[in-house]
């Protein structure tokens, strides 16, 4: 039920961050997670690297010397560069988040952040990039979700889900094999951008787990310690 490491595919990452120490820690953390990382210390250098190399995700600080983070991403988008962008920002306001997404960013993480949170979000961004065909049916192992009839089955047996449980399971299944953090769930399933004092998400997950995993030897919904959850079937 517990998984200690976060196994993700190796990614080519661009970090545009002017604070040298922060960048060094971030580069180290990401390299140790098995990714290939380039670092640019300002917006102009970042833009040059983004033009020259193909990256899976660009991690861009909002406030940068020479070329501001928002302008950098706007320029990239104007030039037809569609690399997913995750903004890091010391400005954690809802307004700033909206500005970041409007400028062409794909996700927004306020500082200070946990590296596991960043890794989970990077993973989600990379996989989202793959063309998303209109699916009517999601499958993980012997767990099936019918998006049209809004019903769920495990080994052919029907599972009774509340509307929100359905949304929760749908999100987990769309990100099957990836680590999904509590914050990601709150943002995407509930559309809340604040941190409830008690970890209400855990209770929702254990309720969902009781519905999909109880009575089965193979557990699909895993807790990733210190990070979040992961829905996956052993291949």
């Amino acid at each position, binding site marked *: 039920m517990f998984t200690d490491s976060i196994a993700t595919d190796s990614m080519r990452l661009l970090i545009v961050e002017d604070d040298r120490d922060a960048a060094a820690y971030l580069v180290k953390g990401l390299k140790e997670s098995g990714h290939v990382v380039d670092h640019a210390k300002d917006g102009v250098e970042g833009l040059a690297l983004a033009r020259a190399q193909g990256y899976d995700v660009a991690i861009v600080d909002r406030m940068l010397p020479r070329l501001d983070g928002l302008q950098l991403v706007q320029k990239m988008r104007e030039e037809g560069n569609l690399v997913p962008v995750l903004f890091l920002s010391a400005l954690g306001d809802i*307004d700033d988040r909206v500005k970041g997404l409007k400028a062409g960013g794909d996700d927004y993480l306020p500082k200070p952040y946990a590296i596991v949170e960043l890794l989970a979000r990077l993973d989600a961004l990379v996989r989202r990039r793959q063309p998303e065909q209109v699916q009517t049916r999601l499958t993980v192992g012997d767990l099936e979700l019918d998006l049209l009839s809004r019903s769920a089955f495990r080994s052919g047996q029907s599972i009774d889900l509340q509307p929100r449980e359905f949304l929760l399971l749908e999100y987990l299944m769309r990100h099957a094999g990836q680590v999904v953090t509590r914050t990601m769930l709150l943002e995407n399933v509930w559309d*809340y*951008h*604040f941190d409830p004092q008690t970890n209400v998400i855990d*209770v929702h997950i254990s*309720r969902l787990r009781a519905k999909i995993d109880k009575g089965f030897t193979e557990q699909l919904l895993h807790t990733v310690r210190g990070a979040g959850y992961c829905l996956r079937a052993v291949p």
Partner: protein
Amino acid sequence: MRFLNLFRTSAFRLALVYLLLFAASAFALIAFIYWNTAGFMASQTDETIEAEILGLREQYSSSGLPGLRQVVLERSANVGSGLYLLANSDYSRIAGNLTAWPAAPTGRGRWVDFTYDRVLSGVAERRTARARHIELLGGFQLLVGRDVHERREIEDRIESALFWSAVITVGLGLIGGLVMSRSQTRRLDVINRTSREIMEGDLSRRVPLSGADDEFDELATNLNDMLDQIERLMSGMSEVADNIAHDLRTPLNRLRSRLEVTLMRPATEQEYREALEAAIMESDGLISTFNSLLLIARAETGEARENFEPTDLKSVLADVVELYEPLAEAKRISLKSVSVKQAIINGDRGLISQVVANLIDNAIKYTPEDGAVSVSLKLQGEQAVVEVRDTGPGIPQAERDHVLRRFVRLEASRNEPGSGLGLSLVAAVMRLHDGEIALGDAAPGLVATLKFNLRD
């Protein structure tokens, strides 16, 4: 120098403009009366002279020169203001009370203003007169006139009175303007002096009232009220600074000590790992306290009002209740909600959700197992009322106001997790929405009541 400054005050300029207008209109009025009166008196004199000439002409045509001479003699003998002189064609005197033909140029039918010497009781006096010169058939010259000395004197008096009253009006007006601007400047000086003292750092200074209850007193009262509010905000801010110091320093100190103690002696990898994990947890707590602080600060500045939009409280409550329902169930607490169909207010959905989540979170946290938490939404006149009721221990009456202020946690709950910012955040968000929050006794337990103004 100060006196020159006085001329530059707006009060003095206003007084000056008013004075000029007033003096001009007073002048016009008096001048009109004067010219009318003087003109009337002059025309009366001329009419009297004309009437006499008519009489004397008739006398001359009916009884000839001797008759005319007789009448002139008779009239001249009367003591009055009538003046007569009958002369030959060479202007030598025949009869009359004038001794000689006037030196001023005359001519037939012409009016003449001249002076003559009047001898009364042996004293000669030079006087002013007005007359008309007539030539009779036969070449005789006749001058008929009136002594206008008194009239001219009155006119002179009025003229000089006019001049002096103008001088006095302007002089008094100038002095009045100066006095008026002086008194206004003096009262403004008091306000300016107080502002300077406050700018120099003494925020306890206030503008004194004159007691006249006029617009200056109103200005002073408004300034004083504003200063009171600024002082309240400033002391609030220093209270915040104290509280930040307390609530951030304590966990920072804990974090630092833990790391320091771990390094004091060699430890196993497992021990280091545990210490680091504890440090990460501690810093997460700090981050969340810090975020709450920022949110409270932002709510207090009112900046977040820009994001206000029509929001249905019913759906906000339903979503939050749904979020907490499994948590309540896990603790065997019944979480029920009752709501009206719709309650639209103007607000920030995210912040209101957070407020309601906070209250429900607290209610579940402090309610023992098998208890109950109920949430209700009602309409009361122009307000939407949200109530969160629990069956926990409640909050003693004396501490209810206290917990709505920043950072306060009840001593009894000091050791439970949480930053203690929950209720102060609720209070700040309610202030942002011009709403109210009240804590009451649900006997047993606590009831938190939120009142929002409905959108009109």
